[in-house]
């Protein structure tokens, strides 16, 4: 709610971190690491998304019900993708 106003410096710091992560994901993609490429790319993507959600979207300073609402889409999506991959990856 209105009680927490982040400082401008926080936003700039988050932006710099996002830039570093972007550079990292592009650099890593230049090397052939096999399955690790996808794993690292997705990890960095989730890290960037977390920074945006927690600071730019203020979820870090939010109330519990709102966090539940924010997580709900991701939870259902994770269920769908998990069950789909459980099928696809185990087919003969």
């Amino acid at each position, binding site marked *: 709610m209105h009680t927490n106003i982040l400082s401008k410096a926080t936003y*700039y710091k988050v932006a710099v971190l996002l830039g570093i992560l972007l550079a990292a994901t592009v650099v890593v*993609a230049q090397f052939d690491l096999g399955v690790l490429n996808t794993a690292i790319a997705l990890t960095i993507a989730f890290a960037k998304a977390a920074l945006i959600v927690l600071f730019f979207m203020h979820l870090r300073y939010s109330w519990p019900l709102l966090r539940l609402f924010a997580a709900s*889409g991701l939870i259902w999506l994770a269920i769908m993708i998990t069950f789909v991959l459980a099928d696809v990856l185990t087919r003969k």
Partner: protein
Amino acid sequence: MSATTAHLAHQFDDAEQQFAAAELGMWLFLSTEVLLFGGLFCTYSIYRLWYHAAFVAGSQRLEQVLGTINTAVLLTSSLSMALAVHAAQTDDRRGIVRNLVFTIFLGCMFLGIKGYEYRQKFVEDLVPGPNFSLTADQPNDNSREGRRDKNNRAGQPPYRAPSQTTLTTEPDVGRVELFFSFYFAMTGLHALHMIVGIGMLGVLLVGASHGAFTPEYHTPVEMIGLYWHFVDIVWVFLFPLLYLIR
């Protein structure tokens, strides 16, 4: 308190409750958006697992440099959007306008670069459809008819089994075409969200230039900010999944 009560709808106890309701509704909407894009991401995952070589080949035809620039542009626009909300919270009215203008500018820049990439894909015959070809950039016969002859696809069914392809060392053309179907569907849906976002930022800009937003009431700036950051997050996942496959 007049600025607070002026915007307070009668069903709410106070401004804080009204803001909480708006916030909750916005996040609920964003959850449905996660599921909308999630369906595409899920389908993408399946075909990427099945046709990995073709997806790598397709990914290599995308401009990695332009994708990287566009990611930087969109991340910066998220920063300026966050600063616009900050300006609204701290009663910096010029700051709201300045940051909204910058956000809109960056949004348009993203769409401009995206549009240039789309145009390149049309020129290189990488748009799924009857003219799709992986060899069109070779400078032999570039007339429309020539390309069609080269592909020799008249009368063929739209799907070709691997045995029918002429390129034995390359991945199956139909599967690379599928990658580009995903590319256009996912980036297209994302671009549509960008266009909607820029439109809403324009509405905010008109309001902000008339001094409509105060530290007591600036809910629209916060809510459209949330939407803008969400669209940014979608791109954060699209970029490595489409441009950086190995």
